[in-house]
């Protein structure tokens, strides 16, 4: 009996699931406005020669630093939020 209890205890400790349960809003769908702002800003920065962070995040950030004051207002806000430019 003691062996049985020990077996089940050990089994349950190693079989314990760690799950993520669904919650509404976890689909990750951005609003159209947000998507448009992000796409527009990344394009603006790419046109300034900064590329995209997926290509080279160091170059992108350095270029963003140099061109921050040249950005449109919405892009400047977007970039400051993401990359904390002062």
């Amino acid at each position, binding site marked *: 009996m003691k062996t049985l209890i020990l*077996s089940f205890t*050990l089994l349950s400790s190693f079989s314990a699931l760690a799950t993520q349960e669904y919650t509404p809003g976890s689909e990750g769908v*951005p609003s159209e406005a947000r998507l448009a702002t*992000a796409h527009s800003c990344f394009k603006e920065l790419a046109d300034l020669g900064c590329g995209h962070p997926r290509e080279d995040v160091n170059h992108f950030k350095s270029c963003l630093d140099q061109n921050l004051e040249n950005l449109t207002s919405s892009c400047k806000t977007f970039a400051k939020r993401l990359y904390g430019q002062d």
Partner: protein
Amino acid sequence: MMKSVSFILLLTLTVACGKGGSGGGGSSEAEAVAPSLVGLTPEKVVSGSKVPEAAQTFETSGVDLMSMSAKQEAKMKKALEVIRLVIATEEFRKKVLNHKFLGKKTFVDNGGLTNAEIYQKILEGAEKFKLSKNNTMDMGVEMYSDSSNTVGYTYPSATQIWVNTKYFNAYTAAGVAHNLMHEWLHKLGFKHSATANASRPFSVPYAIGYIMMDIGKDFL
């Protein structure tokens, strides 16, 4: 009866002492530290207005996509790219460092770690089954299909996670990044309540998963 019980006990002990078992001695590999992590401390994580170098060098190349269709693999790769891009942002650093529960900068079920220590642990990428601070997300990912409300799961002793196609198919890459991050944080050793309660959303896997998804929307 006693033979069956003895077999179960023997099997359990074998699993426990095997590689990746939570009761075992862990990996026998020498602990390697990625160059960008050298000198990184919780104090350095908090100070300054820019992310540490390790946030910019963080990689997801250690994720093994197992038995997936080309379409599933493409979406997973996009989600992994989202994770990499989000971790490189100052916004992610700030949101993790400033996360609050009941007005205090902390996470629920934090394992005794401060927010800065949790952020550092993410950058180190030392999963419980690997123990190597390689600045890389390492784990296997497998798909499964289930009608439950479970988005994904893992076991403490497993090196992989399982993702439910019911949600994977409907999620954006940011939503998938959310789930991958959540399950990977379990691989780092973070836990949460098994039942839905008021504090569970403030646990490390749930809260940082949400942060990942929210910022990830900017990279779709």
